[in-house]
């Protein structure tokens, strides 16, 4: 029983951790080398694609998606998709996809350039080649250089508040169980132990 209990809670926190890692914003320092759009037909990976642009027909099976092609500071490629999240999940309420694409293509910088233009891309999501999924870029700001680091203030505050809430609920549940449920079980099992 103890293994089942720990297994359950281990799995629960693992899934929750993965969920937060996917959903919460992260910052990358990258160099944008190209922007393009490509038709996608989300299939079994459709969970990792967003919706059609806000206001467009949401039922069409395929659509064009903006992409932003970049290189990270370690010279490895990273490709972002650039999609509206609209009023759906995750709650970034991003409607300015086309504006973001314009900003991205304004900050292009190839390897051969004398002074490279680095940018900070805020994004959520994962890149996985096996499922053809891409993180969704939310905002792009010019960076001071490749060594710039961004303090994730939002994540710090959010996770602190979340931990406080989880702890508060846990304490109240413990108290509720000790006061209401345990005495009841003792009642039922009276004279049987």
């Amino acid at each position: 029983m103890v293994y089942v209990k720990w297994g359950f809670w281990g799995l629960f926190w693992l899934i929750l951790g993965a969920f937060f890692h996917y959903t919460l914003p992260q910052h990358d320092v990258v160099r944008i080398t190209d922007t393009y759009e490509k038709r996608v037909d989300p299939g079994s990976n459709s969970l990792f694609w967003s919706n059609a642009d806000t206001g467009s027909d949401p039922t069409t099976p395929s659509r064009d998606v903006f992409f932003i092609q970049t290189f990270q500071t370690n010279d490895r490629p990273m490709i972002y998709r650039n999609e509206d999240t609209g009023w759906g999940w995750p709650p970034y309420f991003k409607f300015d996809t086309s504006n973001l694409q314009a900003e991205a293509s304004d900050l292009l910088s190839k390897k051969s350039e004398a002074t490279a233009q680095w940018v900070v891309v805020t994004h959520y999501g994962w890149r996985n080649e096996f499922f053809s999924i891409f993180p969704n870029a939310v905002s792009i700001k010019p960076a001071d250089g490749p060594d710039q680091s961004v303090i994730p203030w939002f994540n710090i505050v959010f996770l602190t508040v979340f931990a406080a809430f989880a702890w508060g609920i846990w304490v109240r549940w413990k108290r509720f169980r000790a006061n209401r449920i345990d005495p009841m079980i003792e009642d039922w099992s009276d004279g049987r132990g």
Partner: protein
Amino acid sequence: MAAFARLMFFGFLFLTVIYVVISIWSRSVRREKLEREWDEQGRPGDKDTYISSGMTDYENSLRRKLILLVYVIPTVAVAVIIYVTNFM
């Protein structure tokens, strides 16, 4: 627009559940506090009268109205996120 309506509908539903649960919980906490106070003050008069007058005070209190923040805070948060994501 359907997505917006869906968000409003389910958001409102979800927040209403939270609102109701917090209301019930807060009321029960207040009632327990009144029962304890009545005991500590040397049991002045009838217990039910003491508690019901205390509960009437609670019904009109700012504290109970503050539970409406359950609706206000998420709405403000959404407005702030929209501004930060799209216009900053």
